[in-house]
């Protein structure tokens, strides 16, 4: 059993007391970062990078990895309680998670989010051990054309989201893409739509948009009701019921597989994975009619998917040295800082690091479950606050979150604009999720599109002659036409 020796070695390395401590620190920080909107894992890892200088590389990566997957646990908390996603990958959790809170089932939603995260996270680590090298090669087949097609597919998924009409969802997605072009263009650095202001030069930051569209707009909408009717119901029961577990099993399984596969691919990663899972549940699952009305499936599936994706995104980094997203790019920087070169040879050259980090993820997920389940009881106490006090607290959270991104009041102004704008959009029957997704995908999409066109010397054929790209585009076309067809079938002329 020589093949297993490095794995055993890795487990031994991960379970040294000091490393257990670093893993614990990582997941605790990750949970906090996930709960606090505006503070993301990428920024946190960047801040903590210098602090890991004195650690050995294995401990450093164990801790930083813990921050990343830990943040996926915490991100759902504010989505469920106050309808502000802590991370973009918890955006779709707002739909059913917050609806459950309104029905007094916040405890069940939070509990299921933690359990789904645990199951998916652990399953994804198993997947990571078994298929890492294989999937790594698959990700290598992705060129600019494939990235562009994948992101287009991700965008068309929004057609299935939310309650808005197809036309409105598409209009929001295009608006988001257009907003993403604000600032210096990604290829030549030409200024676009900055209207001469300094603060728009780096583009529209995601965090203030998020805080505005979700947080501020939600508070404004609640203000439509008289103060006496604003209060959220006191949660009944802390735990998911037996029925909840039965309903969640299949969505968690589907979300895990989807999330793991999408996490491996560069680009949207956890965010696209959670959306794909939500769409799957909303359109194809047995209980699809309940989605959007506070169904546990709408929490369990996406939360499983974003955790599986977070773990999956380590595959291209560890096996190819290619970061799948911003957080992984920070991780790459951390590894390089410690003199480790990730790539196909990592597993041979540094088996202690490769397997040690993977082994620590088992431990991290267990720690997160132990940490998060008791926190459910603490978090739902927030709902006992009277709304006239809770509302300014939510506003303050959004204000601090937006300001802390760059330390400019302009960010707060952006947030207020998107808050009022988001409220008006809601009144007009638009859904904000497609806009946010498009804002995230806009820059990488434009970059890949322009690169692909430059490589093909202006021929769009490159998108349909490369097999992976063709399949992705066909899927995108199907995802756009299927809801329209379904609608036509439903209402015969």
């Amino acid at each position, binding site marked *: 059993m020589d093949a297993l020796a490095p794995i055993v070695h890795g487990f031994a390395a991960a379970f040294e007391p000091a490393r257990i401590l670093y893993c614990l620190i990582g997941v605790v920080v990750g949970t906090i970062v996930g709960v606090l909107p505006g*503070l993301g894992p990428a920024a946190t890892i960047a801040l903590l990078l210098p602090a890991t200088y004195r650690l050995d590389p294995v401990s450093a990566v164990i801790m930083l990895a813990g921050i990343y997957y830990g943040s996926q646990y915490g991100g759902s908390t504010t989505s469920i309680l106050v309808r502000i996603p802590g991370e973009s990958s918890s955006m779709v959790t707002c739909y059913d998670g917050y609806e459950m809170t309104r029905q007094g089932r916040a405890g069940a939603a939070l509990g299921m989010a933690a359990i789904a995260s645990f199951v998916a996270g652990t399953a994804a680590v198993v997947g990571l051990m078994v298929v890492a090298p294989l999937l790594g090669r698959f990700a290598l087949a992705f060129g600019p054309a494939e990235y562009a097609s994948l992101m287009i597919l991700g965008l068309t998924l929004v057609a299935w989201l939310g309650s808005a009409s197809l*036309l*409105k969802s*598409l*209009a929001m997605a*295009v*608006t988001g*893409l*257009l907003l993403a*072009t604000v600032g210096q*263009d990604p*290829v*030549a650095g*030409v200024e*676009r*739509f900055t*209207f001469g202001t300094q603060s728009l030069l780096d583009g529209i930051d995601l965090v203030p948009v998020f805080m505005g569209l979700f947080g*501020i707009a939600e*508070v*404004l909408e609640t*203000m*439509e009701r*008289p*103060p006496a009717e604003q209060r959220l119901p006191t949660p009944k029961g802390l735990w998911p019921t037996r029925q909840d577990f039965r309903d969640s099993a299949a969505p968690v399984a589907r979300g895990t597989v989807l999330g793991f596969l999408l996490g491996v691919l560069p680009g949207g990663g956890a965010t696209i994975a959670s959306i794909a899972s939500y769409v799957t549940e909303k359109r194809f699952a047995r209980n699809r009619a309940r989605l959007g009305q506070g169904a546990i499936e709408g929490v369990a599936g996406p939360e499983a998917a974003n955790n599986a994706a977070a773990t999956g995104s380590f595959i291209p980094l560890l096996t190819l040295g290619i970061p799948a997203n911003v957080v992984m790019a920070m991780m790459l920087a951390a590894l390089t800082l410690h003199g480790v070169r990730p790539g196909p040879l990592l597993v041979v050259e540094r088996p202690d690091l490769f397997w040690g980090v993977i082994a620590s993820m088992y431990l991290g997920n267990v720690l997160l479950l132990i940490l998060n389940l008791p926190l459910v009881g603490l978090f739902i106490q927030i709902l006992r606050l*009277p*709304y*006239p*006090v809770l*509302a*300014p*607290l939510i*506003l*303050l959270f959004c*204000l*601090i979150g937006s*300001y*802390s991104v760059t*330390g400019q*009041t302009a960010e*707060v*102004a952006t947030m*207020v604009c998107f*808050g*009022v704008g988001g409220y008006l*959009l809601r*009144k*007009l*029957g*638009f859904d904000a999720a497609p806009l946010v997704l498009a804002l995230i995908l806009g820059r990488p999409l*434009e970059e890949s*599109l*322009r690169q692909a*066109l*430059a490589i*093909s*010397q*202006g*021929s769009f054929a490159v998108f349909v002659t490369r097999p992976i790209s063709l399949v992705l585009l066909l899927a995108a076309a199907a995802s756009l036409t299927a809801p329209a067809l379904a609608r036509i079938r439903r209402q015969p002329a």
Partner: protein
Amino acid sequence: MTPGWARSDVAGGAALLALAALAWVAGRGLPLGALSQPGAGFFPRILTLLLAVLSLTMLVHGLARPGAAFTEPWTDRSTRRRLLLMTGALVFYVAAVGTLGYLVTTAALFVVMVRWVGGRGWAHALVVAALCSAGSWYVFGRLLRVNLPAGALLP
């Protein structure tokens, strides 16, 4: 019957059409480049056209079919007051925080929200405002070292 402008598809379509027009005007000077070497204006121009088509469709669709008025929640006077007060408080926050500083501006936001928007008493509002602004300043600014806005006059 709902007047045309108050239907959500009409108002929404018109607003997005205006946005497309703005993007067209503001993006006029950007280099389009060639298909083999797309310039900075290439992607925005495609999107602008796409948005124009979508918003026009929405507008026409809305004009052709009667729909409910989206302005319905604003017909009640006290609702309008709450919404405007909250929006005003946020705008004030952005405008004043650079001068008056975090503590005072945050406290003011809480007073408006608790006293007038929430309809609680003065004592309640002042205590919550003092506790929350000082508490958050200490926890975020001091303990967590989060970047908080500082004023020219006060912290």
